[in-house]
């Protein structure tokens, strides 16, 4: 650590303290509030096992929504990412597409969910639409970035054969950017499951609807059942995606490292 980096760390701490002032972010309040947490924690232990059935069906709905939203979102995002890649298109194509994608990413999925609840009414469909919107914005961005990062060596070598642009995309660009795509989709699904649990808060279906309602009526024990189910399911999904990653992605990356 040199004096310069010490100075920077000191400055950052000072800025955080100054910024906290008008937000009334007082650590003392946090300490005072700890007993309240203990009350909630105690009530949470009073779980109602009868609710596990309902929780199971509602998490299933959540996973269904996340799955449909991810698949449809990726299907829409892929062609858009081709159009948004700077190394494949002229400015007049990629600039507007990028602007649209940036706009879809600006709002978190919960805001999209509110919009779609107004459009199509309460229920899972509004939630699916919200997940699609967010997935499109996100996957398209990750994907056009990995298309732009594709190694120029095979692109140049295959261009020199005299192939058409679409042949180049199909036989070089897509396979070279595909390993990233699988890991991006897994990440997105993971993320979407967690997002979908929240979407119930605005009436867009899924398990979040139950959680928010039980919390509203101070029935922490009942809410705890649902939260526990979410926790277990998220852990299971995480475990599965680690397995998939190990099998298909890590192997490919090790292979790439050997490539000289």
């Amino acid at each position, binding site marked *: 650590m040199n004096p310069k980096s010490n100075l920077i760390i000191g400055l950052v701490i000072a800025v955080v303290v100054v910024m906290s002032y008008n937000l009334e972010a007082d650590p003392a309040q946090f300490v005072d509030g700890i007993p309240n947490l203990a009350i909630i924690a105690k009530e949470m232990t009073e779980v109602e096992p009868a609710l596990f059935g309902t929780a199971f069906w509602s998490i299933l709905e959540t996973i269904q929504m996340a799955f449909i939203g991810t698949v449809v979102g990726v299907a829409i995002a892929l062609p858009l990412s081709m159009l948004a890649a700077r190394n494949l298109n002229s400015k007049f194509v990629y600039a507007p597409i990028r602007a649209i994608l940036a706009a879809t990413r600006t709002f978190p999925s919960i805001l999209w969910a509110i919009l779609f609840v107004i459009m199509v009414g309460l229920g899972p469909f509004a939630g699916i639409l919200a997940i699609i919107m967010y997935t499109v914005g996100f996957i398209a961005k990750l994907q056009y970035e990995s298309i732009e990062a594709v190694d120029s*060596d*095979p692109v140049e*070598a*295959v261009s*020199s054969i005299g192939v058409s642009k679409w042949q180049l995309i199909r036989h070089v660009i897509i396979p070279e950017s595909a390993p990233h795509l699988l890991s991006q989709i897994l990440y997105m699904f993971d993320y979407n499951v967690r997002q979908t649990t929240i979407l119930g808060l605005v009436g867009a279906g899924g398990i979040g609807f139950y959680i928010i309602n039980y919390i509203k009526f101070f029935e922490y024990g009942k809410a705890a059942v649902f939260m526990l189910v979410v926790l277990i399911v998220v852990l299971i999904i995480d475990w599965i995606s680690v397995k998939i990653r190990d099998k298909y992605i890590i192997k490919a990356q090790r292979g790439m490292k050997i490539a000289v």
Partner: protein
Amino acid sequence: MISLSRGNSHHQSFSSLSNITTRTIIQMNDVWASYDGKNYVLKEITLSIIRGTNYAIVGPSGSGKSTLLRLINGMMRPSKGQVKVDYENPNTNNKQFKLAMAKIGYIPQNLGLVRNITVLDNVLIGALPRVGKFKSFFKIFPDNETSEAEKILKLVGLEDKAERKTYMLSGGEKRRVAIARALMQKPVLLLADEIVSELDHVTAREIMDLVVNAKRRFNLTAIMVHHDIKLGLEYADRVAVIKEGQKILELGVEGDKIVDFQTGNISQQEIMELYSES
């Protein structure tokens, strides 16, 4: 005019070997090349390469050897002077030349293989200019192209690894794939940029023998860039020595002597010195 894109050019190049002194496939007249418009990486290059020759370009790193190949395959255009490849102007924007490019097998120094697809798929890329857009989008290759690819894989000794992903191969095997892809183009001209420079001696020899055999078998003209002048003199009919962007010598073997066709007065002593330098 003999166009590179004509289908039976293999036979034409074969017949031309009989009157070897009149048929040139590459003609360069006072060629200058630059990437930034200020510094010239190639200066005053004048050379002609006879059809069917095994031609080598040697020289130290940064001497402009790779640029010379890029001028031939149309990836770069000269700043001054004229380059003719089989009577065509190499220029990737030229539709006529784009057809001709399909007949130039170019193996860059980094090989330019697609890592995440199989060996067979990489070789089939060489056939893309002959396959329709719609079919190639769905990876539907005609049976004759697939069997041709398998034949070429056998020739380069990779028939057992056709379904292997390319990133799993060794350095020598990757070079074989790159050679196979170039041969799949049914080329009349084979360009290879330092294809063996990173390999051990044994593998380097195997690869060079493979190229020489393929060249003979398909009646190609081969232009290979080497870092090592020994490799050039051992395998090629003609060796152009490039130094600081200029062609200083053009060596060939006549009888049991190495002669310089450019200046005509290089001594065996000087050649031996060049030898030991590299």
